[in-house]
């Protein structure tokens, strides 16, 4: 027998080629999910993504309505348009999910992320790090004689750019919150 030829469109999760070729373009979408804040709800959402082989690029979650016990989960994911539609439909049928919004489609939206970044260095590098932080409107939230921790808020691209600049200047650690996003206007 000839070797198995796994068809295009198969993933490492499944041998089936169930993805009709509507479009192969990978899109990045930010999805906001309003859920009842009950135990295990985050596991339900994450389990859906891992179980069905979807990507999670970033995920944030916190209770946003303390009286109604509603949490907002913001997920940044990538996939073909058909996969994105499936993700939304699958999220929508979780019993404790109240609302699913695709901010990328319903947009324009504002996306913000917070990062804290530790940079260790001395001399010129230290001065340069401070100068760049100023340009990026990053704040110094901790300092020792040979280190800074910067706090920066903005779109993920801006944080990427800042982190890239800090790397040669002694970046040692980054912590990021993931994206929080809201639709613009009323």
């Amino acid at each position: 027998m000839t070797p198995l030829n796994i068809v295009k469109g198969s993933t490492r999760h499944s041998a089936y080629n169930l993805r009709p070729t509507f479009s192969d373009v990978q899109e990045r979408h930010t999805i906001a999910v309003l859920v009842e804040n009950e135990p295990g709800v985050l596991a339900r959402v994450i389990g859906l993504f891992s179980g069905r082989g979807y990507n999670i690029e970033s995920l944030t979650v916190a209770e946003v309505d303390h009286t109604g016990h509603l949490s907002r989960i913001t997920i940044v994911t990538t996939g073909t348009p058909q996969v994105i539609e499936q993700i939304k439909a699958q999220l929508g049928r979780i019993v404790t999910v109240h609302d699913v919004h695709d901010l990328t489609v319903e947009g324009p939206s504002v996306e913000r992320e917070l990062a804290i970044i530790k940079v260790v260095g001395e001399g010129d590098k230290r001065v340069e790090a401070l100068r760049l932080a100023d340009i990026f409107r990053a704040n110094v939230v901790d300092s020792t004689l040979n280190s800074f921790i910067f706090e920066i808020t903005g779109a993920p691209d801006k944080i990427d750019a800042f982190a890239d600049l800090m790397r040669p200047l002694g970046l040692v650690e980054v912590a990021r919150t993931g994206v929080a996003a809201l639709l613009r206007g009323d």
Partner: protein
Amino acid sequence: MTREMTGAKMVVQALKDQGVDTVFGYPGGAVLPIYDEIFLQNDIRHILVRHEQGAIHAAEGYARSTGKPGVALVTSGPGATNAVTGLTDALLDSIPLVVLTGQVPTFMIGSDAFQEADTVGITRPCTKHNWLVKDTDSLAETMHEAFHVATSGRPGPVLIDIPKDVQFANGEYTSPKPSTSHYQPVVKGDLEVITELVAAMETAKKPVFYTGGGVINSGPAASQLLRELVDGTGFPITSTLMGLGAYPASGENWLGMLGMHGLYEANLAMHDCDLMINIGARFDDRITGRIDAFSPNSKKAHIDIDPSSINKVIRVDIPIVGDVAHVLEDILKVWKARGRKTDAAAIKQWQAQIGEWRKINCLAFTNSEKSIKPQYALQRLEELTKKHDRYITTEVGQHQMWAAQYLGFEDPNRWMTSGGLGTMGYGFPASIGVQMAHPDALVINVAGEASWLMNMQEMGTAIQYRLPVKQFILNNERLGMVRQWQELLHGERYSHSWSEALPDFVKLAEAFGAKGILCNDPADLDDAIMEMINYDGPVIFDCLVEKHENCFPMIPSGKAHNEMLLGEAETQGVIQAGGAVLV
């Protein structure tokens, strides 16, 4: 109205208030308080199974044959993990179940206590929803909500995990009231899209209805409306494995089952149609075959209560989200209001074309006078039982496909089979659940010997409750479907697809206190089947059949609907390596 009572009493009270009459279960340490309450009342019958998997499948059989949710009660730890297969089975086939599990006391959760398992964690992906109840005051409300979730929208299994201290503690019981939760799935379809579908139906030249388990889940009204629509329009209709019985097998527009082992005329009608109307089916891979060659020239409409089913596998042109009965009612209204139009001449021509395909007689087989052909056994079973008030369950494999091909179903809820998950061991416990719900009916489990052995311990249950379930075992001493695939795809290397140590089924039946019948001669078959039907009690019917019979027609993996194999002569080298990766 609220009343104070223990959590255990609440469980039983809530079951009564939800109209439950039968619970399938198995006791253990973490559910003893609930069993105590069951002992103290007479309204709810508890059926003691012999393995928790059996409890879930029995509840599935009960649910599928009545349209009511099935209920099972098992203990913590191994009780709950044994339930997992049944829960997954019910999830894939959209069977409404409410499963109650005991849990270690709340103060011991997380300590690796005796018989502790993270039940809600384990069952999260195999239930529609689940709950861990941590205080007795919320138990009643959770129970009522569980029934609401299990039966609303696309039905499915739900699970409530109840720690033992919650069962002992007192709390306020609240009676059921209309659900106020946000979970209220839409049942009415969009009228504009429905009108679009009707317009497409009016001009279609080669239409076909493709129906599924959703019609049966929607209730008897859905089947009634479907029959009205099919016979009104004269469009041909085929169905998935799960949807058999929604339209009668004797109906004039019936094409038979479609899919991998579906009928030639059904699959070719699907391939060549110009309008496909999917009602409550989900374009499963057993149905579609090769996706990019699936019904290439048709406009496709899809009616489904689950929005995630739409465009999941096949892009459709006319999506309608809603309950089948509601949508069919609206389709009929609109179609009638617009003057009951169809392109009658074209439909006549289309039916004539289908008639040509039908002449192939794809279910023909070479009979034998020496050995019993499994197809023949089912033909005789059909002939001798079809006039009875009959319910059929099956295990999984060749016998299941033959049963779907050779038995005719005139009504919904008469056919219980594991479709999505393909669970060997499903049929026997399911037959017990069906017989509990329909004590006077003839309940037959069409089985293969390998599947049947997977849950044979339930003979104890059948005997204990005097359930006259008939176990019709097509015994080929092989894992027939596995063997068939090994023959076609793996160079006839029959790796572990037979058993060298099968029991003597007649003695096995007698050991349990049931009747055993052995038949290996086609000439004796009718008498043996009559003996089985007429015996008032459980029967194990060991029907020794031809060992190397293959199940045809067959669409090989990775092939399109119009590339079916009709018989042995066509099987040489047809399945390429690319298809072998699929199951």
